[in-house]
């Protein structure tokens, strides 16, 4: 029983990290109507930037204090998001979903290639930002890093939810998510919306990278997390900020259970296939996710 609960707790904490990455999908979609397949690569880019300002700078003999390094990373993410908006997505405003999707795919291989060219393919240790170790609550062990990440995820969710439903800018972004042309004719700046979307998306993705990688291994392969978070975002509903962590909890717990109880029977496949099986099931049964907007497009 204790073992079972321990699995539940670990699954839930990991799930909230998935939820955090999923939020970065949702933020971009919610503000610009772009499903960004390259989100995993964006996360890796953010992580590499953080590495450059901490370990990389220290390695070159210019140690930067951690708060300054975090600020620099934040500034780097902002610039990065704006560059992507300006060069790739601004010329494509109003284009078909197919074009936007393919631009996302192109961005994926572009970022993967650039990351490899700039930082090389070797894996390195990520900077330790969150405390390591585990605290004991009763009979259970809880990973401190993931616990802080989970609390952070919940707080960020609430903040972003308020931003999108209460602030004037956030409501304008919702109009852009509905339809580019309608938003334009209402006087909403689609360019500004996409810019804000990308800056928010890269910052959230980098925050996710901090939680996910703090003190562990940083390599190009980390980008796979993007594809794991996509089913989470879909299950939560692509327009729902608060749906993402909830869906993350569900998928995290189910994945942990599958990897504990089904993997020995299926040669390790169950936990890997599960998120995607969930994704296909969601698309078949409830295409708009748990909390998404019901639109005609998804019939």
């Amino acid at each position, binding site marked *: 029983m204790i073992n079972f609960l321990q699995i539940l707790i670990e699954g839930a904490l990991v799930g909230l990290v998935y939820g955090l990455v999923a939020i970065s999908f949702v933020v971009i979609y919610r503000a610009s109507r772009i499903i960004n397949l390259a989100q995993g690569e964006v996360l890796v880019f953010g992580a590499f930037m953080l590495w450059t300002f901490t370990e990389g700078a220290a390695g070159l003999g210019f140690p930067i204090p951690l708060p300054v390094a975090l600020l620099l990373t934040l500034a780097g993410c902002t610039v990065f998001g704006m560059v992507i908006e300006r060069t790739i997505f601004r010329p494509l405003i109003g284009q078909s979903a197919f074009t936007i999707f393919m631009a996302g795919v192109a961005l994926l291989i572009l970022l993967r290639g650039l990351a490899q060219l700039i930082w090389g393919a070797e894996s390195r240790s990520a900077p330790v930002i969150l405390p390591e170790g585990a605290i004991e609550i009763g009979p259970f062990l809880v990973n401190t890093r993931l616990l802080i990440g989970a609390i952070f995820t919940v707080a960020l969710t609430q903040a972003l939810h308020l931003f999108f439903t209460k602030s004037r800018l956030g409501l304008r972004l919702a109009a852009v998510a509905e339809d580019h042309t309608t938003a334009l004719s209402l006087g909403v700046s689609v360019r500004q919306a996409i810019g804000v979307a990308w800056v928010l998306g890269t910052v959230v993705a980098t925050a996710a990278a901090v939680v996910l990688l703090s003190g562990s291994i940083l390599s190009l392969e980390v980008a796979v997390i993007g594809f794991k978070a996509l089913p989470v975002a879909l299950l939560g509903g692509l327009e729902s900020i608060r749906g993402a962590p909830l869906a993350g909890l569900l998928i995290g717990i189910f994945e942990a259970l599958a990897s504990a109880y089904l993997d020995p029977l299926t040669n390790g496949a169950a936990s890997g296939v599960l998120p995607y099986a969930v994704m296909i099931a969601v698309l078949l049964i409830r295409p708009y996710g748990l909390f998404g907007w019901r639109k005609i497009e*998804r019939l």
Partner: protein
Amino acid sequence: MRPTGIWFDSYASEARVLETRRSRVWLLILLAFLVCVPLAAGPWLLGEMTHLFITLIAVYGLFVTVGMAGQINIAQSAFVGVGAFATAKLSGMGLPFWLVVPAAALVTGCVSVLFALPAARVRGFYLALTTLAAQVMFPIVILALPMSWLGGLVGMPVTPPSLFGLSLATPTGFYYLGLGFAVIAAWMAFNLPRSRFGRALRAVHDNDTAAGVLGIPVTRIKIESFFAGALFAGVAGAILAYFLQFVTVSSFTLFTSVWYLGMLIVGGIHSPLGPILGVVFITLVQEGLHSVANALLQSGAAIGGGAVFALSSVALAICILVALIFEPRGLAHLWHSAMTGFRLWPFPRT
């Protein structure tokens, strides 16, 4: 646009793909040239050409699904992989070559239908996500199945093909195999837009609500477009399996799928000429980068093999983005406008 002085006196002649005698002669010259290539080329060039033909078949499959029907498919490489593994398994069971290829195509088609079923409920990029799921699940499933089924991590050997007691397992044999199937694929793709099925695909692509009103079974057409595209992928996978003589999961990645899509987009998704131009162009760019990188390596620069791969990904991504932003109709449109300009010269093209 046609040059002046060409008119048709029957519907059949107007509906032809190759309208004039001159274009038919040029096609014959091109085919004769391709048939004669093995007489002069070395094994390296023949291998590259065979690879190009196999890619072309897979991209023609994408042309049917993505270009004609407008359904995004980001799992073409996984479908090619299904075809390759089916070929390895079936040829290992002793089936003859001429039976293995259609069987592999059918198996691939059936697998693709499994992932096209959500088309009944969703459209647009939500449908693309199910194909993404197919691509991601493919290696997980193959690796998890027992070793004796599909080889698992190690992979599977493929029995060399032979036809009428004649072994095809030489560079020249593979070349003709690839050429033959690529010509069939191109022939089908050029004729598809003129057929009833092709017109239905086009209608679904343009506006599926309107297509439904016209009496086209939209869901069935969408699923059939995946099935048809996967048939091409299955054939490409079968030839690739015979060509490589050994199949492993690592040859069929998401990146290869993206390459296929990129070739289609750069070439032009709406014209059957697009895949040919796109595949040739991207292959040339890739080979150019490889030779530049090799020259740099020999001059002693410190770049690894990984950097070459990274560089070619960046190049492909830039090609796709440039095509999307500046010329969404691709190289095929550039080709057509260049031809029109040539015919009208010295008059300006309106």
